[in-house]
């Protein structure tokens, strides 16, 4: 989706403002939202790609107004309602109404270290032929889907070189919408800064992007 989240190359967003001795969380509610979001994934009602897409479909003005954890909170609430885990009125009141179907037991405190250690296994150990070889010239597809995509706008239609083939990975563009994992090769593609941004860019600089088979065509 051509949302404001896809901001690589946009201008006038202001200077970068680093903060000295920044805490992990500025407010306690941020820490709670962080934890709630992570603990909902093991229930398998949605995945990380779905969660990213939920943020992407915020109206651009709201997306930019919200802080990072406000976006997380907003997306979490939307997903809870969409997937029937809570109703809007339950969320407004903070108390359950009626009995909720408990599909999966929640992650316990003892299980958290294992949950972190296990991480997200999104590579797939299956034989899928690679469409491209390392060193090959490729072009980012010119696509403008309204769904989720990890192909940033700035790389669409641009010429790059496959630097590395990382093997077979879940394809987020379909996985976000429960349309299957569509496992395929994931690459690092090198785009020169001049290919992406023109003559204003420094001649030797480059941007490296992770792209999947379905994002690329032979050049």
């Amino acid at each position, binding site marked *: 989706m051509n949302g404001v989240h896809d*901001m690589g*190359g946009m201008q006038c967003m202001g200077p970068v403002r680093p903060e000295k001795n920044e805490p992990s969380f500025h407010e306690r509610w941020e820490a709670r939202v962080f*934890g709630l979001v992570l603990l909902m994934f093991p229930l398998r009602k949605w995945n990380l790609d779905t969660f990213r897409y939920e943020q992407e479909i915020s109206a651009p*003005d709201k997306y930019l107004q919200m802080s*990072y954890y406000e976006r997380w909170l907003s997306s979490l609430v939307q997903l809870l309602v969409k997937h029937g885990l809570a109703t809007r009125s339950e969320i407004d009141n903070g108390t359950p109404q009626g009995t909720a179907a408990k599909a999966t037991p929640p992650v*316990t405190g003892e299980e958290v270290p294992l949950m972190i250690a296990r*991480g*997200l296994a999104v590579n797939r150990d299956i034989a899928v032929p690679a469409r491209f070889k390392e060193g090959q010239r490729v072009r980012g597809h010119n696509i403008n889907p309204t769904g989720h995509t990890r*192909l940033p706008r700035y790389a669409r239609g641009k010429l790059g070189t496959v630097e590395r083939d990382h093997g077979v990975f879940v394809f987020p563009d379909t996985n976000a919408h429960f349309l299957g994992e569509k496992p395929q090769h994931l690459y*690092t593609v090198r785009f020169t800064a001049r290919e992406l941004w023109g003559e204003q860019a420094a001649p030797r600089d480059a941007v490296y992007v992770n792209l999947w088979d379905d994002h690329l065509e032979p050049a």
Partner: protein
Amino acid sequence: MHDVAHSREPHEPHLAHDHQSVPSDLALRVKSLESLLVEKGLVDPAALDVLIDTYEHKIGPRNGAHVVARAWVDQSYKSRLLANGTAAIAELGYGGRGGDYLVVVENTPRVHNVIVCTLCSCYPWAVLGLPPVWYKSAAYRSRAVIDPRGVLREFGLELPEDVEIRVWDSTAELRYLVLPERPANSENLSEEELAALVTRDAMVGVAKVTLAPLGVCT
């Protein structure tokens, strides 16, 4: 709850100056959401506490600094690290969530690497902890790819024109860690002393590692 964008103001404006004693509207909403999810049996509050404590106190940039310092003192570790970041970093006990597939990119006098996630805010949690606000900001995400030299200048880092800047956009679940250049005149420092010099910003690629200004190496 569907519109949290305008909810920064507390419910009682006359108390708005007292941030210590009046929970914000957001804090109240989150508290209410948490108790709902706990009552519904979807979340175990103990799990929430362990998770937060882990990312607040146990997983952070010291992990990455350990990796960097080891690579500086152990050439064979460095070779393994650059060949397979995930496996070499697992040797030191780090990995898992936000570090399932780690790629280490090396800074040299000719090449400088910078990490960004333009589409969201992907960051190597397993080795650096949670990202700072500036990394998640629109300013950084938008400009790191089109104007990396301008962004680095805002961090006080001016790179010569003939240094190649490589910007790594984290568009998949691969997570990057920059291996900074070892500072000059640090030959006599131990691995632990070296690790103490390595900053989070240097491992994101927006700073260099320098010797501490006060007598570390005398």
